[in-house]
């Protein structure tokens, strides 16, 4: 499964005013406004969260699990993203944060940052041994993977075929800590909307070992209230190398290839992928690409400002060095980290399965586009005049949904009425 239609970003219809702000921010033109409400086209949504950030009415949200979801399981395990550490003041150590998390009802806690170190090692190897032409692109950001599936299918072969740190942490819990048990629930504490989707429709693995995804913002208040009175347990194992995955440059530093570059923010990611597809970047070996500004710290399910969070994480990375060495929480040297199945292209932008029919539709689209005002005003509910032309060619809307075309038609009609009014019956015509 490659998550063909499911996505975690949804609309709260009660809050949506149909204002058309979100449609301009969507990198795959997946949103249209219909009948005063924003509609997300399932097959195009990549879960990047841009619309969540852009919506002035907070009508866009990501579906994630409530804290109470853990009650379905006898054994409850939390696997927090390193981004969680950047949400709190540095006076609370990582040990303290993890202990407080445990205090909320989890039997065990394993850092995704620690799993990220394993992924970094496997990633470094896979960059060195890569078979694809050009650089290897990190597959850790689910929105970037989906962006490539939808908009850059020729770059699928460049995706690093290694499981994400979240998936690796969850598998360690299920396979190494509690082998053979079916009553273990693993919950990812997430800054990311896309991770909700990949926990149900994973990328590169057949089934995800993650049972639920709890947004950082949903756990923030109870966790913050628990922190001051929590007794610290030595639960932290990750080094700065793994913790840094929460922000831009973290993964590329951890992978350690000198010919690596890192890019964050969906618009910049797109420009890098465009350049790569054009045959540029011949000397780049690795691309860390993260959809959110400044990396996962900019995720839509976070609370703290991404740049504050990043500064805090950097300070923590330096501090962890002085903590001294701790034994790894579990032996993981022999763990298989590779993908189990390839990721497929999603033909969400294709006009018609029959190429000749698609060509006819595209010709129609070009003609319609040329007749439109080109203001990209959004009144029709599509992000651009071009997208509107495409919607007309696909038969989803009619040309008069463009208010300028409608006005043109009304004017023609009015002119015809006036012309008709001038015509006198022959008996009355005195000229």
């Amino acid at each position, binding site marked *: 499964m490659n998550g063909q239609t499911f996505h975690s970003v949804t609309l709260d219809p009660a809050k949506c005013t149909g204002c058309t702000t979100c449609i301009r921010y969507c990198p795959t033109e997946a949103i249209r406004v219909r009948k005063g409400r924003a509609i997300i086209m399932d097959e195009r949504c990549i879960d990047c969260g841009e619309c969540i950030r852009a919506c002035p009415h907070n009508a866009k949200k990501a579906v994630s699990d409530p804290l109470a979801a853990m009650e379905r399981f006898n054994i409850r395990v939390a696997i927090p993203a390193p981004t969680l550490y950047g949400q709190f003041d540095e006076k609370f150590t990582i040990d303290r944060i993890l202990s407080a998390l445990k205090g909320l009802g989890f039997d065990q806690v394993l850092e995704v940052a620690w799993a990220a170190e394993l992924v970094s090692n496997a990633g470094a190897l896979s960059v060195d041994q890569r078979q694809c032409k050009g650089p290897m692109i990190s597959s850790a950001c689910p929105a970037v993977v989906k962006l490539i599936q939808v*908009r850059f*299918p*020729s770059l*699928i072969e460049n995706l690093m075929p290694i499981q994400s740190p979240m998936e690796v942490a969850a598998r360690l819990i299920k396979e190494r800590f509690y082998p053979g048990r079916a009553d273990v629930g693993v919950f990812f504490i997430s800054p990311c909307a896309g991770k909700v989707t990949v926990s149900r429709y994973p990328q590169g693995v057949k089934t995800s070992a993650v049972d639920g995804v709890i947004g950082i913002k949903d756990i923030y208040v109870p966790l913050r209230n628990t922190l001051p009175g929590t007794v610290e347990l030595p639960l932290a194992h990750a080094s700065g190398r793994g913790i840094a995955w929460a922000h831009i440059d973290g993964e590329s530093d951890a992978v350690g290839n000198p010919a690596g570059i890192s890019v964050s923010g969906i618009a910049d990611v797109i420009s890098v992928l*465009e*350049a790569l*597809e*054009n*045959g*540029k970047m011949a000397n780049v070996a690795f691309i860390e690409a993260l959809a959110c500004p400044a990396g996962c710290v900019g995720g839509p399910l976070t609370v703290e400002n991404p740049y504050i969070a990043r500064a805090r994480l950097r300070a923590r990375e330096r501090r962890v060095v002085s903590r001294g060495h701790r034994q790894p929480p579990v032996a993981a040297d022999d763990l298989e980290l590779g993908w189990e199945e390839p990721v497929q*292209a999603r*033909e969400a*932008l*294709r*006009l*018609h*399965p029959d*190429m*000749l029919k*698609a*060509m006819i539709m*595209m*010709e129609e689209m*070009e003609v319609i586009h040329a007749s439109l005002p080109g203001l990209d005003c959004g009144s029709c509910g599509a992000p651009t005049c071009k997208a509107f032309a*495409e919607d007309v060619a696909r038969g989803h809307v009619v040309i008069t949904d463009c208010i300028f075309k409608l006005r043109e038609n009304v004017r023609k009609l009015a002119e015809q009425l006036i012309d008709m009014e001038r015509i006198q019956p022959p008996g009355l015509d005195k000229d």
Partner: protein
Amino acid sequence: MKLHFDVPGDDLSLAGKASSELKKALGRLGIDPVTIKRTAVAMYEAEINMVIHAHGGSADAEIGPAGIDIRLQDSGPGIPDLDMAMQEGYSTAPEAARELGFGAGMGLPNMKRNADDLRIESTVGVGTTVTIRITLPGSTTKAP
């Protein structure tokens, strides 16, 4: 079907737009990723050449069931020695373009590598016309 693009001259930051638009169109038609990439690379290199050497020009693409034909026309200085220009590493790009990582002398060789047929007609002082043909997989039609 036909697509027309204007390639504005002397602004390298805008170069690549036509190639990007063509790529989007090919994706909408459901052309396979490998062909899209080949087309993108060939078109991009041609576009860059046009901006660096010829103050821009125009590009016309014709997409049919057998393949993609791209014709790029400029009224630039022309190429005095075509054989020399086709050699890898040969470049007459100005310093400003080199600083941006262009002008490695790979433009024409890259176009040749990615196109199924590449024709260049150039007259010094008049201009250059580049025709690129990309055959679609499964198509039996040979390049003209």
